[in-house]
């Protein structure tokens, strides 16, 4: 077992890549994730593990380098922050269409446009609803600690290769820049050429031997029928991913009457808000999606049995909240609270928002109870008259 180290979130991504046997990283500088490229160039793993590190001329080039390397059956990684991820979307769509395994990191900053370099969570839609063109899904992992930044790189590659699907690690500027203790793993050697051929020989391009047909990596079907069939196949795969790869975490949910739904940095802030609320006697809980696709729809729906209302807390104007609403299906009130444009909400602000929601729900409940009591009294009065 490796050592314990104090690391920045971005460095953890880089170190994890070197140690999990990643073959190549292609990236382009952008705040707040440039440390990934800086750390990797400083470590220069090409001299140790043989991992390639290359500063590309743009995010577009970087994602297409990932395409090329991934289509060789290699573990390829890229990272960026929001504006750069927008540029990568065409490439990500091609990677999804051609069913290539790859890991993409988005250390989100505030937008739209050039926006701000401060942390944000306003790329949720872009991450889980497509982003690029066509019907496709990414597996989206949302770390909320530096340890998870580290762990999700290996997990990302495992999932990417299991499903031959791009995996997005949706981080944010706060986790990327934050320093925490990280349990470092031992080095996993990169796959040898023989292992790669053995594992990916049925689809990847290694140079055609006499023994097989030529492998072609493409996302093109000129005819609509095979393209529809390909889409069916992709949809079946996404269903399988939904069935098998859901990850989430519950925090004080057993007796919670009011439930936060939050991922990443917001989920940590909600934990603090829960602590403050519980001190006041409020029964608060948190459901934290760790995978954003797949999304814990059923778990949120189940929570409606006990919970009276949900508050989606995001550093955005309200994106994930739509998926919470879809899961709750109108059975309970679902509200959104967020600071955005690079602002991070304080736990007491979050608690305040929850208390407002609670007050509204309780007022409604009281009214309902009053109405009920009134009706009952009227009924009784009628009875007595008769």
């Amino acid at each position: 077992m490796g050592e314990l180290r104090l690391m920045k979130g971005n460095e953890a991504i880089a170190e994890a890549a070197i140690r999990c046997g990643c073959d190549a990283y292609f990236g382009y500088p952008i705040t707040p994730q440039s440390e990934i490229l800086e750390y990797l160039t400083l470590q220069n793993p090409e001299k140790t593990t043989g991992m390639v590190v290359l500063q590309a001329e743009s995010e577009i080039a970087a994602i297409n380098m990932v395409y090329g390397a991934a289509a060789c059956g290699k573990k390829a990684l890229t990272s960026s922050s929001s504006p750069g991820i927008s540029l990568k979307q065409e490439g990500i769509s091609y990677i999804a269409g051609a069913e290539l395994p790859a890991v993409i990191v988005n250390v989100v900053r505030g937008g739209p446009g050039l926006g701000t370099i401060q942390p944000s969570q306003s790329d949720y839609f872009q991450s889980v609803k497509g982003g690029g063109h066509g019907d496709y899904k990414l597996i989206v992992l949302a770390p909320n600690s530096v340890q998870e930044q580290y762990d999700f790189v290996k997990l990302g590659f495992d999932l990417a290769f299991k499903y031959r699907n791009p995996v997005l690690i949706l981080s944010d500027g706060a986790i990327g820049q934050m320093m925490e203790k990280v349990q470092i793993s031992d080095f996993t050697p990169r796959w040898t050429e023989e292992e790669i051929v053995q594992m990916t020989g049925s689809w990847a391009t290694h140079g055609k031997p006499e023994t097989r047909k030529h492998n072609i990596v493409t996302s093109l079907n000129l005819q609509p029928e095979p393209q529809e069939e390909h889409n069916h196949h992709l949809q079946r795969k996404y269903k399988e991913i939904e069935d098998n790869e859901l990850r989430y975490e519950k925090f004080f949910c057993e007796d919670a009457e009011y439930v936060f739904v939050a991922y990443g940095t917001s989920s940590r802030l909600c934990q603090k808000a829960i602590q403050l609320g519980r001190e006041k006697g409020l029964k608060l809980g948190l459901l934290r999606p760790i995978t954003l696709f797949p999304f814990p729809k059923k778990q949120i729906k189940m929570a409606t049995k006990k919970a009276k209302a949900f508050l989606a807390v995001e550093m955005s104007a309200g994106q994930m909240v739509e998926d919470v609403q879809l899961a709750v299906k109108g059975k309970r009130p679902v509200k959104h609270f967020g600071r955005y444009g690079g602002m991070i909400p304080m736990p007491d602000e979050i608690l305040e928002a929850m208390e407002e929601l609670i007050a509204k729900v309780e007022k409604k409940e009281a009214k309902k109870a009053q109405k009920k009591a009134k009706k009952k009294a009227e009924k009784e009065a009628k009875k007595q008259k008769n």
Partner: protein
Amino acid sequence: MSISIQDIIKEENKVFSKTKLLTDKVFSYCPGCGHGVAHRIIMEVIEEMGIVNQTIGVAPVGCSVLAYDFMDIDMQQAAHGRAPAVATGISRVFPDKYVFTYQGDGDLAAIGTAETIHACSRGENIIIFFINNGIYGMTGGQMAPTTLEGMKTSTSPHGRDLHQMGFPIKMTEIVAQLDGVQFATRQAVHTPSAVRKTKKAVKKAFENVKNKKGVSFIEIVSNCNSGWKLAPVKANEWMEEFMFPVYPIGDIKG
């Protein structure tokens, strides 16, 4: 003694036949299109060098998007213009393999200019085949960066006006300036002697990859009969008369 044709047509007398690195699929190209000859030459060289198991090609978006259906080697299809970046990714993780891109002028000289220039500038150990037909063939004959002055296309219907639409771009001259480029040449495939010269250049390019010399950039000035609205033989004559003065044939570097 008169000899019958059947006496000549015998296996032992065969001097030219299709390389086995071309599949049996009929090319999707228009009659007379130079893409076919370019495909064949590249495949012949790979076969002759015996490197098929070490070669990976990258197809572009353009008429030759389906090159992977015709070339019986491992291939990837790249997004429009991004083939040099894709090839970079391949070559970096497989430094001992032969990696080439095959791109049109819209793909390489318009949308993919940045990828082209930087792959060349980094000196990636790859070959870039650049099929310059002065037009966007696949999308129905729109103006390309390489379209000649006065040339009519569907988006320069009155002829390319230099003031309005700018000048034809000479990519091979541009990339020849870059230190990462070892070999830059402009060739054609419309006559037997042009084909022989091009094949020599292609061989040299693959040798360069073997010796890790950086980028070999081979432009092939070619026809687009459909886009130019000329019969194939006429198109080749037009190409000699009008394309070659702007895009002169020959080695530019290396």
